[in-house]
Structure formats: structure tokens, C-alpha cells
């Protein structure tokens, strides 16, 4: 299989109708302090407990991939042993996602305001911003100068720039890097909320999650819940790739892919499936068009929203070849720490590669099927779980196509259609 590098540069940015001014609407270029303040930013907090209750009532969950309830995480860190540390995690390792970098480059004050609120809610005096995108770093540093000059927030915020890798944004990799080590995951326990930076209870929070805190403060829990669903209130940032309308979109939870693609003027007749959650949640067949984009609906379908990145598979992209390309990425980009991961991803990658080239037999598919369940949970971080998700979902969603690759001919692959490496990668314009 020949692979070609092809990174989609994301320029289209829009909010779904009805979302209003939350994360992306009305932002042209980089929002400066004056603009952010005139929209009500950096508002005073009278009572941290009230803020925590509002976050709880708003139903905010983490946007980095794990979807953990934010209020619970804040409370756990607040009541941990030692003075808490809060970290805005903007290290966006998913190749198909751009939303964190977009927020840091275009709305640094919204993210910093969220970090400020997280510090107030947890009682932390030691806030950090952790990034791997130099343009994000300079945007945040400029924002911090603006905040300091205006005397709005007197905390000394530490900004840390690391090399971008798939695993560098994993929460224990963040902690390890901030403690002076390599940005590689650690095995658990302890979790960062128990013992993180300098052994203190540490909140590692995705920047989109933090960007929602000022919205909860400004709108109130009830106002925040006016879009989205009862179980998944609010909006999420969708990095959409694989179609003409590729871009960054703010979507209320509960919309279907068919609805979103229709809003963007995309034809859905040729959609064969979706690649979900960046590379983490595997593939879904055409049925995905009608599955609401929220935590519970996607979980019930055996998938997940992850970091909010979704790639559209067309009739010109073979799901076997796409899965093989994602697995090759995992086999190459894993942290090379856990034996089950570096061996397991290499083994699954070899089978998928052989499938693409019509060199795999039924025994190979049986081994892949075994690994797709047996290897789950056998790594210190989520990389191996992402890899098993890809294998298991391909086998579940496209069994006929897998069989065709064993003993038939695949029209798409035989027509010479190639998958890019890494597949459906997205980037922001040079900034």
C-alpha cells in the first residue's frame, strides 16, 4: 500500500444554528482582552462552592476524550491531600483534531478564564498551561501579558511547550513532563487527581472543557443547558474531515451526523461510514449517519465521541484500508513502553496491512479478533485501547468487507484509491 501525506488545513469555522455566542461564534482572528472583557469575561467569583454547584448542574463533562464529570473532578482535587495544581491541557495529540489549538490561538482569554475559575474552584494557586503548538504558546503568553497589565488575575501561570506526539497529552504524560520527565504516560494508580505535579492533587483538564467554565458562569446552569440534550448538555467542537465541508464546527450534543452534514450542504448518499473520536473510537458503518452525537448514544452503538473529531468515509475510502492506516499510526506512534502495546499494535497492524493487500487468511482474521478483545486494558495509557477499538469496530461494522479482503476483490482498493498517512489528518493554517 502506498501512502501519501495529505493534511487538511482547517479554515472553515462555524457554530450550528441556535448555539449562540459560546465557543466559536463571532470570533474573527484572535480575540484580545478588550473584546473578551466586553463580552463579560473574567467576571468576579463570589462563592467557589456556588460555582461548583453550577458546574455540576450544568452537567459539564470533559471534552478531551474521557467525558468525566467536571464538577466531580474539581471537587476531588479540591479535597485531596495537599495544595491543588491545575493544568490547562492543550496538547492535542489526535492527528484528526484541531479544536484545542484553535481555541488557544483564537480564544486564549476564554481558556485562561476557565483556568482561573478552575483554580478558584479547587483552591489552587499554581496554574499551568501545557501545549505543543508554538502558535498556541505565543497566543497564551500574549494573553497572560494582557491580563497582567490589566491586573485581572495575579496568579503566576506557568506555560510549558513540549514536542507534539500522540501520547504527550495523556494526563499522566502531562504530569510526568511538568515534573521534569519525558512526556510519556505512567501506569496507574495514582491518578493525577490523587498525586500529580509535585505529588499534589492535580486537575489536568482539556482546554475545551475549561473554555466551558466561563460559559457556565455567564449563562448559569439553566442557560447553559438550553442547547444539547438532558444527558449531554451544551455544545462540543467537531473537527470534521474527509469531506468537502471539512472544518471546525460547534455543535449541540444530540445532533445526528446526517443533520450536521445536511446543514453543511454535504451529500450523504456516498457516505460508507465514519471514523470516530479521532483515531480512538474506531469506525462505524453507514448506520452512524443517524446516531445522535452524544455520549450515551454513541456508547450504545459501541463507539464514542472522544475528542470530537469525526472523519467521513466515502465510497472512495475502503474502511479496511482506513483501519490499517490508523493501526499503522498506532504501531508507529505508541510510547514504546508497554510490551502488550508495542507488540499488540504491531501484530494487529501486520494483519490489517495483509488484509489490505489480500494476503491475509481466515486464521489471521481469527487472531485479529482475539487481540481486539484480549488486549483491551493491557496498556498503561489508552493507546492500546484505541487500537483494539479500531480492530474490533472494523470486524463488527464491516464483516463482509473483511471477508472480501480475505477471499475476494475490493473494488475500492483495486481501483488504486490510497489512504493518506496519517489518515484524515487536520491542521490549522500556519500561525
Amino acid at each position, binding site marked *: 500500500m502506498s501512502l501519501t501525506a495529505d493534511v487538511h488545513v482547517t479554515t472553515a469555522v462555524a457554530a450550528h444554528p441556535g448555539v449562540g455566542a459560546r465557543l466559536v461564534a463571532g470570533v474573527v482572528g484572535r480575540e484580545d482582552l478588550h473584546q473578551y472583557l466586553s463580552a463579560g469575561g473574567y467576571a468576579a467569583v463570589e462563592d467557589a462552592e456556588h460555582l461548583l454547584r453550577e458546574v455540576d448542574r450544568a452537567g459539564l463533562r470533559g471534552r478531551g476524550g474521557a467525558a468525566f464529570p467536571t464538577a466531580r473532578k474539581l471537587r*476531588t482535587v479540591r479535597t485531596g491531600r495537599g495544595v491543588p495544581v491545575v493544568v490547562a491541557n492543550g496538547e492535542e495529540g489526535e492527528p484528526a483534531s484541531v479544536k484545542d489549538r484553535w481555541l488557544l490561538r483564537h480564544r486564549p482569554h476564554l481558556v485562561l478564564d476557565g483556568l482561573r475559575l478552575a483554580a478558584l474552584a479547587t483552591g489552587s494557586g499554581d496554574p499551568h498551561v501545557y501545549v505543543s503548538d508554538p502558535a498556541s504558546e505565543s497566543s497564551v503568553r500574549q494573553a497572560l501579558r494582557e491580563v497582567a497589565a490589566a491586573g485581572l488575575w495575579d496568579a503566576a501561570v506557568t506555560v510549558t511547550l513540549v514536542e507534539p506526539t500522540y501520547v504527550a497529552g495523556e494526563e499522566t504524560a502531562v504530569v510526568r513532563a511538568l515534573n521534569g520527565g519525558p512526556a*510519556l*504516560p*505512567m*501506569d*496507574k*494508580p*495514582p*491518578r493525577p487527581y*490523587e*498525586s500529580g505535579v509535585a505529588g499534589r492533587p492535580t486537575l489536568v483538564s482539556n482546554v475545551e472543557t475549561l473554555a466551558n467554565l466561563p460559559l457556565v458562569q455567564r449563562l448559569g446552569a439553566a442557560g447553559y443547558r438550553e442547547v444539547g440534550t438532558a444527558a449531554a448538555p451544551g455544545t462540543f467542537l467537531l473537527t470534521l474531515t474527509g469531506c468537502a465541508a471539512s472544518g471546525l464546527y460547534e455543535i449541540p450534543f444530540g445532533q445526528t451526523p446526517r443533520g450536521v452534514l445536511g446543514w453543511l450542504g454535504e451529500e450523504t448518499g456516498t457516505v460508507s461510514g465514519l471514523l470516530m473520536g479521532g483515531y480512538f473510537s474506531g469506525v462505524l458503518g453507514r448506520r452512524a449517519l443517524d446516531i445522535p452525537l452524544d455520549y450515551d448514544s454513541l456508547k450504545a452503538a459501541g463507539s464514542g465521541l472522544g475528542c470530537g473529531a469525526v472523519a467521513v468515509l466515502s465510497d472512495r475510502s475502503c474502511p479496511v484500508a482506513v483501519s490499517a492506516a490508523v493501526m499503522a499510526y498506532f504501531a508507529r506512534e505508541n*510510547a514504546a*513502553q*508497554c*510490551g*502488550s502495546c508495542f*507488540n*499488540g499494535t504491531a501484530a494487529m497492524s501486520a494483519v490489517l496491512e495483509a488484509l489490505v493487500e489480500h494476503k491475509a487468511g481466515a486464521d489471521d482474521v481469527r487472531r485479529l479478533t482475539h487481540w481486539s478483545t*484480549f*488486549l483491551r*486494558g*493491557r*496498556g*498503561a495509557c489508552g493507546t492500546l485501547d484505541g487500537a483494539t477499538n479500531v480492530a474490533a469496530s472494523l470486524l463488527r461494522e464491516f464483516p463482509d468487507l473483511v471477508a472480501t479482503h480475505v477471499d475476494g476483490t475490493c473494488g475500492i482498493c483495486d481501483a488504486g484509491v490510497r489512504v493518506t498517512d496519517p489518515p484524515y489528518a487536520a491542521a490549522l493554517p500556519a500561525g
Partner: protein
Amino acid sequence: MKIKLDRTVCDGFGLCAVHAPETFSLDEWGYVSLAGAGDVAPEHEQGVRRALLDCPVHAITELKPVEAQQGDPAR
């Protein structure tokens, strides 16, 4: 007894799975994961202690009572 296994340290020697196969689950390349959450039943403690002492890379540690509370999903 509660233990922790650091899989980033494990080099696949496999002695732990010999001494305490009910606690340490091997993959086909010889690397282990804990079969459970790290709580060791009294009848398995002796084998696990032997595994802990024999692991050439010290990938297994016994958690002190206060550490054992950490990682509890109920928190």
C-alpha cells in the same frame, strides 16, 4: 495485600506469572497485566510476594494502606 504493576517497566521476564498465575495474566509476547484490580486474596499472597521479590525490573510494588485507597473508582 494490594499491589501495583507498572507495565511501562515490565520487560516480560514472566516470573510473576509462574509464581502467581491467578494474579498475573500473560499475553502471548510474555508481558503481564494484573488479572484484577490489584487486591490479592490471602491464599495468593505467598506467590505474589515471591513474584514481587523475583521480578528483575521491580515492576511490582506493594501499596501501603494509604496508597491502596488511591485509584479507588468510588472516589
